[in-house]
């Protein structure tokens, strides 16, 4: 096991969904996807984003895209024009999730090319 940031084995893009945001996490390899599907739970993302998101977190899977889609239900301070936040649209939430640190098996790292 090696401690790495999620960005070593995945990419992400985020945007607004009403008063919340979505973070699509795309694994960089099949091995990374299998690992993340198991380990990158909604609970873990909720904990990591606790100072940004004040609602629940839902997770959806899209195996064909090696993607996990997280919905952060209350992460924009109101959303739309009612938000006072700099990032009122959650554009940077993907990069925040990519900073999550995980213990990743060497086999997964070996099977996952660097960016």
């Amino acid at each position: 096991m090696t401690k790495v940031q999620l960005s070593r084995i995945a990419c992400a893009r985020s945007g607004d969904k009403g008063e919340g945001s979505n973070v699509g996490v795309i694994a960089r390899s099949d091995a990374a996807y299998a690992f993340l599907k198991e380990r990158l739970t909604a609970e873990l993302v909720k904990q990591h984003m606790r100072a940004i998101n004040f609602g629940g977190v839902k997770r959806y899977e899209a195996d064909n895209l090696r993607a996990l889609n997280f919905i952060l239900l209350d992460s924009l301070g109101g959303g739309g024009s009612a938000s006072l936040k700099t990032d009122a649209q959650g554009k940077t939430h993907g990069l925040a999730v990519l900073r999550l640190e995980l213990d990743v098996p060497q086999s997964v790292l070996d099977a996952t090319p660097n960016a």
Partner: protein
Amino acid sequence: MQKKEFVRIANGQGFWGDSILGPVRLVNEGPLDYLTLDYLAEVTMSILQKQRSRDPRKGYATDFVAMIDRILPKLVEKHVKVIANAGGVNPLACKDAVLAVLKKHGVTGMKVAVIEGDDVLGRLDELAAKGEVLANMDTGAPLATIRERVTSANVYIGAFPVAEALAQGAQIVIAGRLTDPGLVLGPLVHEFGWKADQWDLLAAGTMAGHIVECGAQCTGGNFTDWKSVPDLARVGYPIVECKADGTFTVTKHEGTGGLVDVSTVSHQLVYEMGDPQNYITPDCIADFTSIRLRQDGKDRVHCSGVEGKPATPTYKVSASYEDGFKALGQLTISGPDALAKAKLCAEIVWKRLESDGFHYAPDERLVEFVGANVCHAGVELAGAGEPSEVVLRMGVKGPDEAKIDRFGMELVPLVTSGPPGVTGFAGGRPKAAEIISYWPALVKKELVSTKVSVFSS
């Protein structure tokens, strides 16, 4: 008529405010059959309604008319058709302005189509009388609770009116609140004769539209691995080459900057995604877990396997309403001790306001120290030290305009009555601005009908 093997559809405008070079370069730098342009967001509709109420000739995306003026010679030369939701809340006025541009250029016989029927602001009471509650899809509250504050209400309409306009020979199609994917699906329905119950094909065209709808976001813009993207300054805007069987290839013009690969396309597929198995549009439900992506040469991604499900019996309504006021202001605080001084400044502002009888509840106020991890609050950062300067950004919101304005008077004084190193007040005193909130709801499809009219230059 000989059917084309494939149709090339580009998106040159991901939102109102996107680079005007997108469409200009698309019509100049390579082959193209259709150019789609997206101008509308929820708040935009409200602003446009306000403009129209002041001047009946306004209420549409004026940038679109300037764009047609600039690219018209190429549209004529290359026979490129344009589909845009630039009509806003006044597509007929938009059409008049476009016809004036055609006349100025001496272009005669070009057909311009207008799609109407999406604007239901004037029909809200009629819809209510017919039993449509227009409940907020997030909260369940009926529209009646905010009825008198509604500033716009539009139905998201689908691709079929666009296909109808094209069938009538239109080279420029102007719509109001047409869905973004519908801009692309419309020409495909027209070109390939796709039927309203061919769900897999409609879903395929919808996904092609979703991939290109944010412009350069699928060709290397806003991409995790940005260091690997060449020449973003000259980023190519996206093109889908679509076939009658629903397969398509995402690409960009040769020689342009940016990058199209399985990763850039996947990034866009998950953008603003909810439940990937149920992406609901007026035309169908697309299953994003069905698409298969394959690299097919440099800057080409082949897409296949898309599956769809029957459309729902409702349209989505997007209403906006007045929801109070807000004011935001900022100051730049230099080091040494930038962060500590910025925190003191924020404390001073709230204390001074409090001493004058103005109290703002925790959910009515905000303080950010930009430069000291605002965007990724609470996330551990390796190697982050004391910032050499921070931007203190403060804001308040609420129903009372005078109270919001009072806050704005208390920020700039910190330059002379706070800690040293406070600057960056060039914007002046922050003033109350109206908050326009968004109200998503559903309406029965049979209560809404669209109308296509064609005009000739």
